[in-house]
C-alpha cells in the first residue's frame, strides 16, 4: 500500500493564485448572502409561533422571506460551495492548474444569476418559493437569473473534464483519487438533473412569464421540477460525502476503512439520484400510482449506499480512535477529538454525522409511499430536511468554507474555542427545532405557512391551541440555530480581518486527505462510463411512462397568478 505518496497532502502543489481569489469569492459571497438567509430562518420560527403576528416585518413579507431563505440557503450557498470545493480538490488531487478563464466565466455567470434572482425576490416580484410552483408567476428575470446561475455552475465542471482526461493519459491504469471521483459524481448528477429543470424554466415558465404563452401544464411542470428536485438533495449531500470519505478519517487520526465503499457509493449515487423524484409527488393527482410505486422502490434503494457510507465512516472513526489509543468494544468512542481546538474541523463533520442519523431515518419514512399521507407537506418535512441539508450539509459548508478561507489567506483561525462551539450549538438548535416540527407535523401543522396570523392567533376563528407548544419549541430551536450562525460569523470575520501567520506564509496550502485502510482494487467501480449509461437507461425507464401519460392527458393549461390576488394576471386590465 504505497498510497501514502499519492494521498499525503503535503506533497501537493498549491492552487494557483488567480484560482485562489476565485475560490475566495465563491465562498465569501454566499456566506455574505447567508446573513439574509439565516435572518429569515429565525424570523420564520417567530412568525410561525405567533411571536411575530404580521404579514411582514422590517419591510419583507413572510413568504418573500421564505423564498429568500430557500433560494439563498438551498440553491446559492450549496452550489457555490460545491463549485469552490471542486475547484480546490480537482486541482490539488490531479496536480494541475485549472483554466482561469473558465473559472472566471463560471464565477461571473453565477454571480450575475444570483443577483438577478435575489433582486427580484427583494423587489417582491418573485414570491413563489424556491420550488417556483406555477401557476404562481414570477418576474421573467427571476427565472432567467436561475438559469444563468445554473449554466455558470456547469462551466466550472467543464473546466475540470480536460484536466481529468489529461491526468488519465499521464497515469494510465491508475485509480482516480477518491476526492475527484466524489466531485465528478456530484457534477455528473448535477448535469443530468438540471436538464429537466432548465427545460421547465426556459421552455415552460419563462415564455409564459413574458406573456408569450397563455398557460402552463401544471402536472408536467411539477414533474419536471421534482425530476430535478430530489437529485438536488444529493447534489447538496455529495460534496459532504467527499469530506466524510476523504477528510474526516484523517481528522479522526486514522484511515478510510474501505476505498471500495466510497467508490461504490458514489457510483450508486450516479445511477439512483435522479429516477426517483416522483416520491415528492405521492400526494399529486394526474400521475398513476403505479409509476409512483416504481420510483418509490428506486428511492428506497438509495438507502443501500447510505447505510454503506454510515458503516464505513463509523468504521473509519473507530480506526482513528484506536490509533489514538482507544480500546474496548465501545470505549474507543472516548478518544475522538470532539472538542479539540487544533482540529476544530472534526467537530463540524462529526456533529453533521450525528444529525444525519435522524435525517436519514426520517427520510426513509417520507419515501415509504402511503406513509407519506401522514406527513406530506406538514411541519414534519422542514423538520426532516433541517437534519439533512440543514445538518451535515450546512455544517460541512460552514466548517469547510472557514477551513478553505483561512487556509488560502494563510491566516490562523481566530477564536478556535468559539469555532468548536458552533457545530454543537447548531446541533442542539436543530434537535430542538426539529422535535417541535416533527410533533407539530404529526398534529397537522402545515409547512410554509404564516401561522401567527391565524392558527396561532387566539383572536382568529382558525386558532389551534394544540399547535402552541410545538411551534414554540420550534421557535426556541430556531433561535439557537440563529445564535450558532452569529457565533460563526464572529469567528469568520475575526479570522478574515486577522493578520497573516508568518509560519503559514511559507507552507503551501492543501486539504489534508486520508489514506486507505483497505485499498481494494475492484475495476467495476473504477470507471464512470457504465454507471452513467445505467443512470440514463434507468431515468428513461422511470420517467418515460409518467411523462408520456401526462402529455397524453391533455391537462387544461393554467393561467398565471401573482401571490397577492385571487384574480388571474391574464384577466387583469
Amino acid at each position: 500500500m504505497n498510497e501514502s505518496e499519492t494521498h499525503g497532502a503535503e506533497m501537493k502543489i498549491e492552487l494557483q493564485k488567480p484560482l485562489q481569489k476565485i475560490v475566495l469569492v465563491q465562498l465569501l459571497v454566499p456566506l455574505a448572502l447567508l446573513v439574509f438567509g439565516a435572518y429569515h430562518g429565525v424570523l420564520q420560527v417567530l412568525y410561525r409561533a405567533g411571536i411575530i403576528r404580521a404579514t411582514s416585518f422590517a419591510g419583507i413579507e413572510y413568504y418573500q422571506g421564505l423564498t429568500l431563505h430557500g433560494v439563498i440557503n438551498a440553491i446559492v450557498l450549496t452550489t457555490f460551495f460545491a463549485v469552490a470545493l471542486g475547484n480546490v480538490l480537482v486541482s490539488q488531487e490531479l496536480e494541475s492548474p485549472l483554466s482561469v478563464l473558465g473559472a472566471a466565466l463560471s464565477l461571473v455567470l453565477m454571480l450575475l444569476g444570483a443577483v438577478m434572482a435575489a433582486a427580484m425576490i427583494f423587489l417582491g416580484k418573485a414570491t413563489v418559493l424556491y420550488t417556483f410552483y406555477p401557476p404562481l408567476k414570477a418576474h421573467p428575470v427571476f427565472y432567467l437569473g436561475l438559469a444563468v446561475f445554473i449554466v455558470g455552475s456547469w462551466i466550472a465542471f467543464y473546466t475540470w473534464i480536460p484536466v481529468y482526461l489529461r491526468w488519465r493519459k499521464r497515469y494510465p491504469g491508475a485509480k482516480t483519487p477518491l476526492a475527484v471521483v466524489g466531485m465528478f459524481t456530484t457534477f455528473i448528477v448535477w448535469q443530468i438533473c438540471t436538464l429537466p429543470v432548465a427545460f421547465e424554466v426556459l421552455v415552460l415558465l419563462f415564455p409564459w412569464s413574458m406573456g408569450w404563452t397563455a398557460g402552463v401544464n401544471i402536472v408536467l411542470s411539477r414533474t419536471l421540477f421534482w425530476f430535478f428536485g430530489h437529485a438536488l438533495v444529493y447534489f447538496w449531500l455529495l460534496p459532504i460525502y467527499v469530506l466524510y470519505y476523504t477528510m474526516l478519517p484523517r481528522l479522526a487520526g486514522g484511515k478510510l476503512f474501505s476505498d471500495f465503499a466510497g467508490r461504490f457509493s458514489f457510483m450508486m449515487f450516479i445511477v439512483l439520484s435522479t429516477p426517483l423524484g416522483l416520491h415528492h409527488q405521492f400526494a399529486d393527482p394526474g400521475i398513476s400510482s403505479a409509476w409512483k410505486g416504481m420510483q418509490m422502490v428506486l428511492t428506497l434503494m438509495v438507502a443501500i449506499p447510505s447505510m454503506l457510507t454510515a458503516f464505513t465512516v463509523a468504521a473509519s472513526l473507530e480506526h482513528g480512535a484506536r490509533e489514538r489509543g482507544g480500546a474496548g468494544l465501545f470505549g474507543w468512542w472516548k478518544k475522538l477529538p470532539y472538542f479539540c481546538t487544533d482540529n476544530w474541523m472534526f467537530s463540524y463533520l462529526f456533529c453533521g454525522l450525528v444529525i444525519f442519523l435522524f435525517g436519514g431515518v426520517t427520510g426513509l419514512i417520507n419515501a415509504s409511499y402511503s406513509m407519506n399521507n401522514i406527513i406530506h407537506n406538514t411541519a414534519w418535512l422542514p423538520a426532516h430536511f433541517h437534519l439533512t441539508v440543514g445538518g451535515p450539509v450546512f455544517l460541512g459548508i460552514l466548517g469547510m468554507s472557514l477551513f478553505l478561507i483561512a487556509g488560502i489567506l494563510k491566516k490562523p483561525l481566530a477564536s478556535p474555542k468559539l469555532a468548536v462551539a458552533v457545530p454543537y450549538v447548531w446541533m442542539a438548535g436543530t434537535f430542538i427545532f426539529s422535535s417541535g416540527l416533527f410533533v407539530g407535523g404529526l398534529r397537522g401543522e402545515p409547512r410554509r405557512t404564516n401561522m401567527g396570523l391565524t392558527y396561532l392567533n387566539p383572536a382568529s376563528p382558525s386558532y389551534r391551541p394544540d399547535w402552541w407548544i410545538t411551534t414554540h419549541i420550534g421557535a426556541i430551536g430556531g433561535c439557537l440555530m440563529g445564535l450558532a450562525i452569529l457565533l460563526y460569523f464572529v469567528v469568520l470575520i475575526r479570522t478574515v480581518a486577522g493578520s497573516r501567520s508568518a509560519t503559514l506564509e511559507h507552507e503551501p496550502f492543501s486539504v489534508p486527505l486520508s489514506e486507505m485502510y483497505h485499498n481494494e482494487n475492484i475495476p467495476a467501480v473504477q470507471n464512470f462510463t457504465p454507471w452513467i449509461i445505467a443512470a440514463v437507461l434507468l431515468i428513461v425507464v422511470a420517467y418515460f411512462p409518467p411523462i408520456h401519460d401526462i402529455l397524453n392527458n391533455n391537462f387544461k393549461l393554467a393561467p398565471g397568478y401573482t401571490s397577492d390576488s385571487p384574480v388571474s394576471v391574464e384577466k387583469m386590465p
Partner: protein
Amino acid sequence: MSANLQPKDSVNPVEKRVLLGAVFFTGISLALIAYAAFGLGATVPTCLPKGGLFEHGSVAKRGAKTYELHYLAKMWGFEPSRVRVPVGSTLDVYVTSKDVTHGFQINGTNVNLMVLPFVVTNASVHFNKPGIYPIVCHEYCGAAHQKMNAVIEVSDQVDDISAEGIASPEAGKAMADDKGCLACHSLDGSAGVGPTFKGLWGQTVQLADGSSRVVDAGFVRTMILHPAANPVKGFDPVMPELPMTDAEIDQITEYLKELK
C-alpha cells in the same frame, strides 16, 4: 504518482456483510410497504380518468351515511367551508382547484392531497368519532395562504349532511340584500345610484378614466374592494368600500352571473 495498479482483489468481508445487510433491510422495508398498499389498502392518489372537472363545491347523498363531497379549492378558501355529517359517515371526497396549487389535509385522518388546477383528485374517509376535523391548505398559495381552511364536523346530533359556504346564486342574492347592494343597484334594469345588476355580467362598461372593462370576476372584486378608485362612467363615486371576504365576493359573483 505511478501506475500502481494492484492485482484485482475482493471486497473486504466486513464491508460485504454490511452491503448484504443493507440490501436485506431495504428488502424488508419494501415488503412492509407492499403489504400496507396491497394488504391494508393504504395507497396514494392516482390519475383519475379525464373529465369530471367541476366549478363549484357540492355535497350529495349516495347511500345510508355515505356521501359524495366535491371541494373547490381557491385563493383563499374551500367550497364548502363547513360540512356537518353524522357519526359513522363515509365520505368520498373529490377536490380540484380553480386557480393555483393548494393542499388538502383533513387533520386527524390519512387524507392528505395536493390540489392542482383543472385536475381532480380523490380520497375516501370514514368517521367513527364525533368531533371537529379541520381541513388545512398546506401548500403555499399566495399572500393569504394561512387563512385557507375549512371544517368537517362529525356530530351525533344530526342524521344527514349539511354544508355551508357553497357559492350559489341563491346565497349570493341573500348576500347582496344583506350587504345593502340592492339599495343602489336595481334588479330590473332601472337606473339607480349605481348601475343595474340586470344584464351587467359580461358587458363592457366605460370607466371614469376613459378606459373600458368587461364585467368579470376580477372587475367585480376590484369594484367591491376599491369602488371609488375608478368608478363606472356616469355614476358618482359614492359606493362605500366593503370589507368582504373572498368567499362573499364569490357569492356575489355567482349571483351576477345568474342575472345575465
